[in-house]
């Protein structure tokens, strides 16, 4: 039965009121997190209009339909401005899938358990860093699943990027120029290992590394002219400090130290993605500032059914743009509630960016869209991550005992120069490295300067 009181306008009024009053409790009909803690089913927290595209569009768009230039106006308010332009002007198509009501499908299992287990144990200390109530580094899961401030919401993104204790992402990347041609293609491996806030059996901290947050490296495996080129980022737990960044070039067998604040440059030629852009939280959280919540409401996000486990190497079809290869095939669902947060790069005197705006899904506190603005206040780049539970048909990937959840692809579109960086998490890349999660021995294998030199030979 449809209760008129809880129609679309009710939801809209509710979101506006909550934003205006600074109320951050997720859920329209009832608070979200008690439901998640109870059964992981969010159905009762939102009216139908926020849980199905049919309800939102009054039946004009149905689950399974494609969003194209012909009907994108109906969902214009559910897309970031660049995604809207991609569909309206550049031939992009987006397939709508059913909204996820079971939030266990939006987290790695252990991470969700830690989030629930540690709920209420985090606080921001006087410096702005996340600590436990007894002042120690964070112990795992989202520290603020029901964040009450923009800083708390953003801390959920920053503390554990990939939501596994460690991850190896085998990445295939394509750089698409304004003419629609592929200007560069890279294979690289992205490795993350949290030193604190761990959720596995070994406890929340790696012994002796409690002053760090994570190690993260990137090493290129193809093409030949960049093979062996690698970077190593060492993040401090104190989010006021810049990470230490070193690079390695195999041809010279030398490590190059980069200026610590030089984070608005790509890793290799052709990429539109900067270090600052990783996970919408690529810089230490407190090197940015003026965090504020600027809105909330429903949104279209690529948060489910985006794993192409039935395709070769998990790669996927492309379409759109001048040569029909600018965009990945993507599935999006109606996310009933996202929080829109803005922040400014206050710690970077030369930042070419004036602010970023990030749309964060309240169900898992992961970002679903992110745009940066130039210093004139015009949109510069858009980042659209795509996530999925790693199961499709009979295929499944485990992150231990459970089905893995991870990102599957990313669009990074410099809308001003119209260059697209798009990449997928592939099964394997050149050099034979495969994607995987929660593996032992990653630190020695990938996350030291010695490892960089060894991998570069």
């Amino acid at each position, binding site marked *: 039965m449809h209760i008129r009181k809880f129609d679309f306008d009710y939801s809209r009024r509710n979101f506006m009121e909550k934003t205006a009053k600074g109320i951050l409790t997720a859920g329209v009909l009832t608070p979200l997190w008690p439901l998640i803690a109870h059964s992981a089913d969010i159905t009762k927290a939102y009216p139908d209009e926020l849980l199905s595209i049919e309800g939102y569009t009054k039946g004009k768009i149905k689950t399974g339909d494609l969003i194209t230039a012909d009907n994108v106006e109906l969902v214009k308010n559910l897309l970031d401005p660049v995604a809207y332009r991609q569909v309206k002007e550049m031939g992009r198509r987006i397939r709508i899938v059913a909204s996820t009501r079971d939030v266990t499908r939006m987290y790695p299992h252990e991470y969700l358990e830690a989030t629930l287990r540690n709920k209420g144990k985090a606080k921001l200390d006087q410096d702005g860093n996340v600590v436990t109530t007894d002042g120690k580094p964070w112990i795992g899961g989202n520290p603020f699943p029901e964040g009450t401030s923009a800083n708390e919401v953003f801390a959920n993104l920053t503390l554990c990027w990939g939501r596994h204790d460690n991850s190896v992402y085998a990445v295939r990347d394509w750089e698409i120029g304004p003419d629609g041609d592929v200007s560069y293609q890279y294979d690289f491996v992205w490795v993350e290992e949290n030193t604190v806030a761990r959720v596995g059996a070994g406890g929340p901290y790696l012994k002796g590394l409690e002053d760090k947050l994570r190690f993260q490296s990137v090493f290129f495996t193809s093409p030949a002219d960049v093979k062996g080129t690698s970077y190593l980022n060492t993040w401090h737990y104190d989010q006021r400090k810049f990470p230490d960044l070193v*690079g390695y070039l195999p041809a*010279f067998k*030398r490590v*190059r*130290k980069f*200026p610590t604040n030089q984070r608005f*440059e790509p890793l290799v030629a052709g990429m539109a993605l900067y270090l600052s852009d990783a996970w919408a939280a690529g810089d230490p959280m407190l090197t940015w500032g003026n965090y504020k919540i600027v809105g909330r409401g429903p949104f279209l996000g690529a948060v489910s059914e985006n794993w192409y486990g039935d395709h070769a190497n998990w790669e996927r079809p492309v379409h759109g743009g001048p040569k029909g290869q600018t965009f990945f095939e993507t599935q999006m669902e109606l996310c009933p509630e996202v929080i829109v947060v803005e922040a400014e790069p206050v710690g970077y005197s030369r930042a070419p960016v004036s602010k970023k705006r990030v749309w964060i899904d309240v169900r898992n506190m992961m970002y679903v869209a992110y745009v940066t603005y130039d210093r004139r206040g015009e949109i510069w780049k858009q980042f659209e991550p795509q996530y999925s539970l790693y199961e499709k048909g009979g295929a499944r990937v485990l992150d231990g005992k459970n089905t893995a959840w991870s990102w599957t692809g990313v669009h990074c579109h410099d809308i001003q120069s119209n260059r697209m960086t798009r990449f997928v998490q592939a099964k394997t890349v050149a050099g034979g490295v495969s994607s995987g999660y929660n593996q032992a021995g990653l630190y020695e294998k990938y996350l030291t300067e010695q490892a960089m030199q060894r991998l570069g030979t």
Partner: protein
Amino acid sequence: MEAMELRHRLARFALGHRFLVLTVMALATAFFAVGLQRIEVRTIFSDLFPKNHPFVQAYKDHPNFGNPLTITVMVKRKDGKDLYQPETMKKIWDMSREIDLAPGVDHDQILSIATEKARYTVVTADGIYSNPIMDDHPPTTAEELAEVRRRVNESAGARTFLVSEDGTAAVINATFIERLVDYGQLFTFVQDLVARERDEAHEVYVAGWPMLTGWVYFFGSDTAKIFGVTLALMFVLLALHMRNVAGIVTPVIVSAVSAVWGFGLVGWIGHPVEPLLMVVPLLLIARCFSHCVQATERYYELLQQFGDKHKAAETSLVSLMWPGTLGIFTDVVGLLLVAIAPIPALERFALFTGLWALNLVPTGVFLTPVMLSLLPRPKNLDHLLATEGQGGALQRGMQTLLVGIGRFAVGRRARFTAAVFVVLSALALVEMFRIQVGNPVEGSNLLRDDSQFNVAVREINRNFPGLMTLEVIFEGKSGRIVRQADTLGTMQALQHCLESGPNPPTATLSFADYAPEANRVFNGGNPKWAPLDPDDASAAAAAGALMVGTNAKAYLHVTDFEQENGTVSLWYPNNKQATVDAALVEARKCIDQVGTSHPNFLIRLGSGSIALQQSINDTVDLYQWYILGALNLVILIGCSFAYRSFAAGLVLLVPVNLANVFLTAAMSLVGLGLDVNSLPILAIGIGVGIDYGIYLLTRICEEYHLAHKDLPLAIRSALTTCGKAIFFTASLMTLGIAPWYFLSELKFLSDMGLMLVVVMLINMVLALLLVPLLVYLFRPRFLESDISVLSESVEPAPGGLRVSVATL
């Protein structure tokens, strides 16, 4: 006869259905008025160049090499101190940050010693540090200032291209994205920035093509002022001459209608109008005025004779329909033929102005008599027509002058006049071939020599390698060629050849200049590691070292985003034609020396400001002859057909071509170069000149029959009737246009005004003197034939006699 009947039928219809004609005209005017809202006046940079020229094709294939959409801001101490002072450093820092806020700027292509892209590299035991020359703030203490000075001195790129040799000036370069840039907005933004930063110790200079366009936009407001002055002057002159309602109101209304049609059509077509060429519409309004005055004068002659407005109007339409249309046809052809030059901005200009000129047929030819017939009968006809000595001083003065001119075209003086013409023409021809094609100044010839822009160009050229580059493009056939040894080696060989030649550039730069430094630094810093091994592995390693952790856009000036093409940039001290010519000669010689075609790349000359400037000059040099030839051909065919005589075509063409010779000689004498802006003048000049010739020749033929083949009498009669209208309209236009020379800050507009005045005067003199002279000297056979199709006579008379309406 059929044609004659047609013009009668058309005239009868137009005057018999005046309100229908007016209604249709009003509806058409309303339709075009709607189009006025859609007019877009803007510059499209790439459309200003000849699309087929190899240099322009090279530019379009590789737009980022020598990117003309770059502005250069130079901050210079003017108190004798060097720039390593806190306040100067702060200015450089602030301006580098501020320019990033400019509309349409490419955020990744801003370069100064304050941006993070200007780096110095330090090799230590722990690795290689590549840091910005300035830290995260402008230096303020003595130690910080000394450190920045040291870093600049250790960075070859910064020392050459970002800081002047004497250390008193620094530049900030910013490149813009063409589809995002609005030159007017950008100009205002930069001028505000400059005004804020300029003080008693610092001068700030700004140059670059976007700024030049900005200045043109800025002075565009002058165009409206000049429009106003020209129209007001013409109106006053018209009022003084006519002194009656019909004679004043009709040209004003008809010209206004024609303008609405002309502008409205371009609005509907949707083509942007180049702001520099906005003055040509003003000229077309003046042309409409001129046609209208011709028709009005004719109407008055007929009104004097018939005494009936309706009959006079209908008869004047009959009499002027074919000569008027033929004159307009030559205007239209002249303007449309400008499109022969394959420059998109000129192609649009040709279409716009050609169609506008075409609308003079319905407006100037048809609407004028309809309007005249509806307006009150003038009471000063005797005065206007100067009949029986009743005219005013102005009228009598004109009569006297024209009779005097006629005396030089006939009788014994004719041979003397011809001899003078021959001598003058010979001298003019000699001078004509001395004209310089291209830019005779340092900076832009569009602006005055002492304009802020040209001063900035000279100052920047004086302190830095220069603003003008010639790009020698290395176009890849396969692979990322700047990672290949052959490419880097050939670039170095080419640079060496040019730098050791007789006219060396002030600086050269290529990707090959960066690679050895990367090789040295990444190999531990010892200078002995700078030279690259001559193999692809070493080249690729050096290129990889340069690109790692750096946006590929940082090197867009030397290699494209994909590293599949590269360029060798050559700076020259100025863009004067002699410099350009010498640069091209040397470049071609050195390219031949290193070889044009290599296994993986092809060397193309070229792009950059110097090449683009040359592409225009080459095109103007070539296509002015094509346009001239085509104009002559079309006019010859058209006029020969109209007069049924090849000789008539020749008689008409001689004066207009001579006018062109005299104009070019005059330009050469006053130091003006022949460039893209002079092409429309060429076409307009010929179009105007031939008009005068047609009207006068037709009248001479007609008067010849009426005067029983007394040619001197016929010439005298033609000159004092039709010649008077020619004299008046030419004077009207000349006086209207003359103020352009004094009023405009744009040198282009001043020059154009001057050239137009000169060409109009030359055309007038040649039409009034040379056409009768040629007719008198050669007495062509078409004088004897029936040219009633074209004649201004209106009725066939029994016995073959025609009743002239202009036997004054």
